[in-house]
C-alpha cells in the first residue's frame, strides 16, 4: 500500500464556432454627439466578459480608448440578430461583425474629419487617444469629440456602421463525409501530475501545466480567467462529476452543491497556463475561440497520469476511487 505518483500528457484541437457554419451574427456601431461609441448587439454575456471584449475590438478598430465604447447587448428590440453564445463562437463571430461595423463608422468619421481639416480622408490616422491626425503632419489634428459634434450638428452625417459575419453553411457529403466543420482551430497540450493512493483509490492532482494556442489573447487577463476556470472544470470532469452515480438507478443523483461532487478549493491542482498565439486567418485580430477547448485536455492527461501511477486503466468517466480500486483488484495488484 503506497502513494504512487504518475504523469500524463494529452494534446487536442478544437473548432471555433458552430459546427458546419451557417451561424450569423450582426452588430451596429454609432457615435454619440460627443464622440463616444455605442455597439449594439443581441449577443449574450455569460459572465465570460463578452461585452468587455467587444468594447476593446470596437475601440481598436475605430482608434479610440476602450473606455469611450459602450456595449448595449441582448435586447431583441434594439440589437440585430446573433445566433447565440455557444460553440466558442462569441468572440470570433460577434468580434468580426463589430470590426465590420466599426470600420464603416470609422470611415465616416475620417471623412468628416477630412472636411474639417480640408485634407483627403486617406491622409488621416487616429492616435488611439481620441484624436485624428494628418499622417506625417501630426500638428494638424482634430479631436474625435469635435468631429462627432461636427457630424451631428454641422454636416449632417451619421457616424455609424453595420456589421455582419457569416461562415456559409457546409453540408456533409453523405457517403464520404466531406465537409468543412470549422474555419479555425485552437490547440492545447496538457501535462498532469497525480498521486494515487492505491489503498483508497483517491487521486490528488498535484500540478497541471496547460499550453493553449488561441490565435490572439485579446485581453490577457480575461483569457487567463477563462483558461484557469476551464482547467479546473476539466479536472472535475475527469475525477468527480456525474448526475447519475449509480446509473441506471437514478438514486443518489446530486440535487445541490453538497451532493453533486465537484472539487473544492483544496482539491485544485497547482495550475500553470502558457499561451501561444498563431493568429487565425479569419478571426477578429486573429482570435480563435478558447472557451470550450480549455476544459478538454486535462481529462485524458489526468487519466493517463493515473495509469502511469498505478498501472491500471479506467476508461469510464468519472475516474472515481471505486473504479480505480476495482481495476487494481482485477489486475491482482492489491
Amino acid at each position: 500500500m503506497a502513494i504512487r505518483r504518475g504523469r500524463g500528457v494529452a494534446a487536442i484541437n478544437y473548432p471555433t464556432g458552430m459546427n458546419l457554419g451557417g451561424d450569423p451574427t450582426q452588430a451596429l456601431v454609432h457615435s454619440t454627439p460627443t464622440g463616444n461609441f455605442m455597439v449594439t448587439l443581441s449577443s449574450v454575456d455569460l459572465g465570460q466578459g463578452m461585452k468587455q471584449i467587444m468594447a476593446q475590438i470596437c475601440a481598436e478598430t475605430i482608434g479610440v480608448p476602450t473606455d469611450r465604447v459602450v456595449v448595449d447587448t441582448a435586447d431583441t428590440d434594439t440589437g440585430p440578430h446573433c445566433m447565440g453564445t455557444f460553440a466558442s463562437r462569441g468572440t470570433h463571430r460577434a468580434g468580426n461583425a463589430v470590426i465590420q461595423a466599426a470600420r464603416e463608422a470609422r470611415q465616416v468619421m475620417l471623412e468628416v474629419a477630412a472636411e474639417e481639416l480640408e485634407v483627403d480622408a486617406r491622409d488621416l490616422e487616429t492616435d488611439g487617444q481620441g484624436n485624428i491626425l494628418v499622417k506625417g503632419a501630426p500638428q494638424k489634428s482634430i479631436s474625435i469629440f469635435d468631429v462627432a459634434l461636427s457630424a451631428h450638428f454641422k454636416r449632417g452625417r451619421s457616424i455609424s456602421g453595420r456589421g455582419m459575419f457569416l461562415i456559409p453553411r457546409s453540408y456533409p457529403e453523405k457517403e464520404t463525409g466531406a465537409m468543412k466543420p470549422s474555419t479555425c482551430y485552437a490547440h492545447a497540450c496538457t501535462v498532469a501530475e497525480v498521486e494515487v493512493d492505491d489503498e483508497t483509490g483517491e487521486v490528488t492532482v498535484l500540478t497541471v501545466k496547460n499550453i493553449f494556442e488561441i490565435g490572439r489573447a485579446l485581453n490577457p487577463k480575461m483569457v487567463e480567467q477563462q483558461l484557469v476556470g476551464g482547467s479546473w472544470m476539466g479536472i472535475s470532469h475527469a475525477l468527480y462529476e456525474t448526475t447519475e452515480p449509480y446509473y441506471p438507478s437514478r438514486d443518489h443523483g446530486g440535487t445541490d452543491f453538497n451532493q453533486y461532487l465537484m472539487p473544492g478549493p483544496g482539491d485544485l491542482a497547482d495550475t500553470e497556463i502558457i499561451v501561444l498565439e498563431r493568429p487565425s486567418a479569419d478571426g477578429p485580430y486573429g482570435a480563435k475561440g478558447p472557451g470550450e477547448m480549455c476544459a478538454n485536455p486535462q481529462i485524458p492527461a489526468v487519466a493517463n497520469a493515473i495509469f502511469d501511477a498505478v498501472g491500471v486503466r479506467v476508461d469510464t468517466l468519472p475516474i472515481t476511487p471505486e473504479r480505480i480500486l476495482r481495476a487494481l483488484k482485477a489486475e491482482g495488484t492489491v
Partner: protein
Amino acid sequence: MELRKSYFADVRKDDLHEIGQPRPRLDSPGHVTGKTAFFADHNFPGMLHLKMVRSPHHHARIRSIDTSEAEKHPGVVRILTARDVPHNVYTILILIQIGPEDETVLADGKVRWRGEAVVAVLAETERAAQEAAAKVKVDYEVLPAVFDMEEALKPGAPLVNEYHGQNYYLYDSGECRKVRFGDVEAGFAQADHILEQSYQSSPIEHAPTETTGCVVAPEGNDRFTCYTNTQAMFFTLDNTSIILQMPGSKLHFVGGTVGGGFGGKVDVIVEPIAILAAKLTGRPVSFVYSREEEMQISSPRAAEKVVIKDGVMKDGRIAARKVTGYTDAGAYSRHSPYGAQKGAGHYPGPYTIPNVWIDTYCVYTNRTPSSAMRGFGVTIGDFALEVQMDKLARLIGMDPLEFRFINAYRDGDMKAHRQPTEGAALIECMQEASRAANWPVAEKYMAMSSYEKEA
C-alpha cells in the same frame, strides 16, 4: 499565465493598441458588489409562479390527468396541460432545418423520461404552486424503458420516441454520420499492431451559478417582455414564436447578463410556457428552475460511448483509425443530432492518418434528454482519443509525447473530412509542454514546425 511571444512571431504583428491589453472588465465592479441586474431582479406586482408536475416514470402512457384538487388549492390561478399549448410538439433545431419535431412542451398521452413536464401550475406564490402541483393526479400505465444505447439499437427494443420511429437519429447519410477516407481495412492489414478499445462517460451537470429561468411581463401594447438568461436570444424568441403560434413582433426578449451557461441555457424550455402562462392569465409570470431541477431535469452532457480501433506501425505512424461514436440523446433530440455530427467532423483528432472510418450515432433512450455542453461533441471524444494515444505509444514502446509529434497534423495535411489543415499549432503546444513540464523529447521533434517545412 504567461504569453510566449517567441512562437509564431514571424506570422504575427503585435502593433495593436487596445487589443492585447489586460483592461479591467467594465462589468466586474457590478458583479462583485451585487449591483448587476440579472433576470430574476425583475419583479412585478401580481407576478405568478410556475411549477411543473413531472413524470415519476421513465416511460409511461398517460391514461388521465385530474387537476380538480389542485385547482381548489388556495392561491392557484391557472393550470395548463398539453391542449393549452398551440404548437405543442416542437424541436429547437427546426430553425436550421434539423427535424423532425419530436418533443412536447407538456406531455401529451405519453412520458418518455423521468422528470418530463406534464402539467404547469400557476399560483400566487411559489409555495402554493408547489403544493398544488403535488395534488395533480396523473394516472400512468408504465411501459418498458430502455436505458442503454446498445440495448436501444437492438431489434425489439422499446421504441422511445414515435416521432423518429427508431431509436436513432436518421441523418441523410443513414443511421449515422459517416466519414470515409482512404482504405481503413488495407491500413489495418499493413499495421504492425491493432488496438481496439472502448471508452464511456456519464452525464454531467453544467452547474451554473444562476439556474435557468425567466420572468415574463405582459405589456400594455399586446406584447410580452421576457427577461431571460438564455444563451441565444433570437433562437429562443423564434422557437417561442413557433410554439405559441405568435408573431415574433409580439415578443420582446431582454437578457444578455447571465450567471454562467456552459451550454446549459441553449435549450428553449422555460420561455415558451412562461409566456403562454402570461398570455392566458394576463399577469406577469416567473418560471425559475430550482437547483434540483437544474441538476436533475435540465439537459446534462450526454453519456457517450466511443470505440476506437487503430492500426499502428512499429515506427510510430498510425496507419488506420476507425471510430464509432454513440451519443445518448435521452428521449428527445434537442441539440444532440448536431453534437453527434460534430464528433464526426472532429475525429480522428489532430493527427494526420491516411485511412479513416468514422460513424457517429445519435441514440434515443429513456434517459433525461441531453444537449449542448462546453466541448459539445468533442470533450468525450478527446478523452477517448488521447487515452488511446497513450495506450498506442506504450504498446510500441515509444514515449507518449514523441508518439504524438510523429502523427501531429501540420499545415497542408489533408484531414479525413477532406479539408486541408490550416493554422495548425499542435506541434508548438507540445514543444512548449515539453519545456514547461521538463518532459524531454528528441531534438528532431523540437525542430519541427506546424507551418514551415524542415530544411
